[in-house]
């Protein structure tokens, strides 16, 4: 029989084992590399990694910067500004499309088209149109994720049962109340889910843009440091990005469970 259940201790042991194997494998690769070339930085050993971390969190007197905080501030500001606008915008557009056939007819074709254009391929256009700086990152993220999020919200509104809409009217709701008190709470968990799934793509677009045009930020730092073969800095940065993704994922999951405990049972 497949999918035979296992004990939870077995599950934990297997999980720890895979991490341990990965770390051991890495140490071994690094050791082998350093046998050949003691100065190697492409597969840094643990002390080189710790130097990389030191370098990232240290205050640099001469340049007056601290990589990690400067990069984190830049990247997170860009990310959350873009995400925020995309979430609010897609919610408004998606609900408007789901509730009004005129808006649907007007917006559905361009949004479906835009949702298919890979945002990374349009970076050059953005640069030409809005120039460098905050505006470009912002546009990049919004362009990359708003259309498909709006379509998700729109489809969720379309799936809203007519009976519940009729019922709301028999309970004395106005059109605006149907939208705000019935449709909105119905699509809210779907919107949170879409946001959770879109943080990954948003990061891809942002890091790509930072790699190409940034002067600060995670993408910029990774590009510069990997050109210099300072993998001792690059790898901790990557680990940090993964940790951030993981954190956002669980936060949004928890938020969704908190405000819409009914949602999981529906699907």
């Amino acid at each position, binding site marked *: 029989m497949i999918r035979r259940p296992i004990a939870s201790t077995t599950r934990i042991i297997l999980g720890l084992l895979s991490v341990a194997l990965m770390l051991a494998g890495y140490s071994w690769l690094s050791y082998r590399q350093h046998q050949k070339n003691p100065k190697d930085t492409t597969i840094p050993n643990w002390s080189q990694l710790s130097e990389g971390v030191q370098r990232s969190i240290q205050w640099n007197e001469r340049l007056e910067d601290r990589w990690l905080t400067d990069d984190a501030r830049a990247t997170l500001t860009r990310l959350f500004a873009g995400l925020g606008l995309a979430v609010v915008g897609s919610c408004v557009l998606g609900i408007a499309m789901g509730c009004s056939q005129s808006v649907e007819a007007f917006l559905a074709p361009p949004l479906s088209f835009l949702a298919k254009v890979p945002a990374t391929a349009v970076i050059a256009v953005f640069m030409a149109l809005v120039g460098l700086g905050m505006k470009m990152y912002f546009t990049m993220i919004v362009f990359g994720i708003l259309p498909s999020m709006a379509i998700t919200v729109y489809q969720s509104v379309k799936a809203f*049962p*007519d*009976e*519940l809409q*009729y*019922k*709301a*009217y*028999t*309970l*004395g*709701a*106005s059109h*605006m*109340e149907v939208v*705000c*008190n*019935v449709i909105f*709470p*119905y699509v*809210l968990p779907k919107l949170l889910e879409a946001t959770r799934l879109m943080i990954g793509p948003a990061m891809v677009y942002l890091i790509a843009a930072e790699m190409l045009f940034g002067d600060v930020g995670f993408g910029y730092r990774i590009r510069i440091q990997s050109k210099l073969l300072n993998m001792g800095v690059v790898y901790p940065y990557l680990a940090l990005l993964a940790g951030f993704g993981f954190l956002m994922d669980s936060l949004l999951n928890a938020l969704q469970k908190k405000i*819409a*405990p*009914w*949602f999981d*049972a*529906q699907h």
Partner: protein
Amino acid sequence: MPNTDAPMTTVASQPHIALECRSLSHWFGSKRVLHDIHLTIQRGQFVSLVGPSGCGKSTLLRAIVGTHLPNEGVVQVHAKEASIPPSPVQGPGRDRGIVYQHYSLFPFLTALENVAIGLKLDQTTLADRLFRWGHWKRSRKGHLEEAAAMLERVKLKDAMHLYPHEMSGGMRQRVAIAQALVMKPEIILLDEPFGALDEATREELQKALLELYEENQQAKAAGQLPDYTLIIVTHELNEAIYVGDRLIGLSQYWDWKAEGHSAHPGASIVYDQPTPIFEPHSVRDFEIFEHQRAAVRQEVFHPNHLQPRIAPDSNTHPEA
């Protein structure tokens, strides 16, 4: 000679209309569904609507709810106060409650919130809730208390904070009934409300409706207008006879040729009779209406039994 011994009638003993359908017809393209429906429902009546599948029961109910207006004819809702003129139905409104078979509750609200949302939507506006926060807080408290009392009436005191997905089908329909009742509409429409329930639960809910009917009777005895008027659409003949006090048969099988139509004009009302009244706690004995059941099967459901439809003016059914 003028009538000197002025009738000592109270309001309740006079017929008091709750809802009227006049010359209601509906079709989809060339498919005729409803033909010239005339239906007058008295306040306090529990009307069961039955008919063969495809006869247009749902179309008629939708016309009354107002979600799909008929091509011809008008539905009018009468207010309790005689001074308010009857208003023609132009869309769904708070004077007609509805209980559907599926999607009967808002999934994102608990039982209590589901019952309270009607009071909230009806009695306050978005602007109130946003800009008169203190006022809204106070009304909300009142709404929740009223909703809780209503849930207690339908015996769901302990399930108040459950979400619909945590409730059984029977509990959900109870909440849906409470949700409609709390609005005190002129009429409550039930569209196959117990169709998805098992027999025991269905019986419990039928008894819950009979309890409302009993309250109606008590109100009438006290000289007041009855509070509850229902139309229940059902495919279950026993349920129709047991819950209702009046049975309406809508059918496409009637003698339309005799009225001079060259093509089938659509379903019409072919049966309209009072049904025996049951008390909620008496024995639920279906044997005693076997005779009526057989008659309905013959007159409403039998494709080859074509009789004239009920004449438009004869169905202002007096109190049974």
